């Protein structure tokens, strides 16, 4: 998710009644936000619900928003808060914890051989390895690699300093490397 200089323009057009502008904006951000939420909650249906909630919240506040730069970090911050609320609700309603077996993070493409990475890592295994990371490190890795955020943006979303964000990312990568080394002797 690269910085989009047109976010301000799209939101302004949408406020003036141009629905196509919002459709474009939504199309730009729905996939990254959904993937971030899926990496957090691990359930596809829940992630889709939370994606809806995130955009509902965004629509509610968009009228008061002063858009200066890319809205990606802002949307992911909203998504993060929505996910935290969901986790709290689960706790309050004494719902059973999310199942250990989480749904896949990555798409399968072509036949199973094409899916294997250079060291024989498939999409399902890669997803499982990501789920093994502690939540904070997983968030940092997802935002940096798949959403294309800078460390400053990751730090803003997680409400920490950029150095902390960078170290969480590096620890996460280190662990992934360790898992890879263990699984591919």
């Amino acid at each position, binding site marked *: 998710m690269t910085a989009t200089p047109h976010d301000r323009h799209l939101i302004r057009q949408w*406020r*003036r009644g141009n629905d196509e502008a*919002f459709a474009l904006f939504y199309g730009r951000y*729905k996939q990254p936000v959904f993937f971030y939420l899926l990496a957090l909650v691990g359930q596809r249906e829940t992630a*889709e619900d939370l*994606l809806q909630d995130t955009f509902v919240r965004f629509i509610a506040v968009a*009228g008061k928003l002063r858009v200066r730069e890319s809205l990606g970090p802002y949307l992911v911050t909203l998504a993060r808060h929505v996910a935290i609320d969901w986790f709290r609700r689960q706790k309050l309603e004494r719902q059973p914890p999310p199942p250990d077996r989480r749904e896949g993070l*990555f798409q399968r493409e072509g036949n199973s051989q094409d899916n294997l990475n250079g060291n024989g890592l498939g999409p399902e295994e*890669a997803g499982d390895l990501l789920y093994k990371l502690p939540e904070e490190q997983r968030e940092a890795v997802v935002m940096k690699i798949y959403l294309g955020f800078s460390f400053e943006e990751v730090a803003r979303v997680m409400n920490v300093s950029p150095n902390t964000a960078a170290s969480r990312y590096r620890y996460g990568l280190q662990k992934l*490397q360790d898992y890879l080394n263990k699984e591919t002797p």
Partner: protein
Amino acid sequence: MSNPEKEKCTEAIFSRFTPMSPGPSADQRILDLARQSTARPCFRKRLLCGAGVAAAACCLALLTWFACRHWLGGPGGGRLPVAPDKAPVTAVDTSDVPMDPLAVLTRFRGDCQDVQTMLEAVPEENKSKKEAIAEKLSRCLEKIALLEERVRFSKKRSAVPGHLSEEVNV
């Protein structure tokens, strides 16, 4: 391999996977919501505008009503009665004003002089009139005697420092 190289390598391995996408089920609902929310501010603005105009009209009507009532004597029942801040000026009643006893005495002396002149002017044959005037003269002289006594008394009291002279009622 150094640490940064290892990191780059791991990053490259994981970045090759295509992340999952959401299904299309939620899209239409969010787009509909966005469409409604752009319509809402317009409605709100109109509502606010309407309310503002109504409030302004009310204020104007009230102002007009007050203006008519207070200054123009119009449909609010006419000009309000204004309480007079001073009583109307009438002839000055000096009955309560204390008079100078000497001045009163002088006036009575003059009056008695006139009565005496009238008495002398009445012929001897008109006895009844002469008696009536004589009686009037004697009353007048009595009053003069009484006044003279008061004037004397008043002079004595006014000699005491700080004491006001007594009023004389005739």
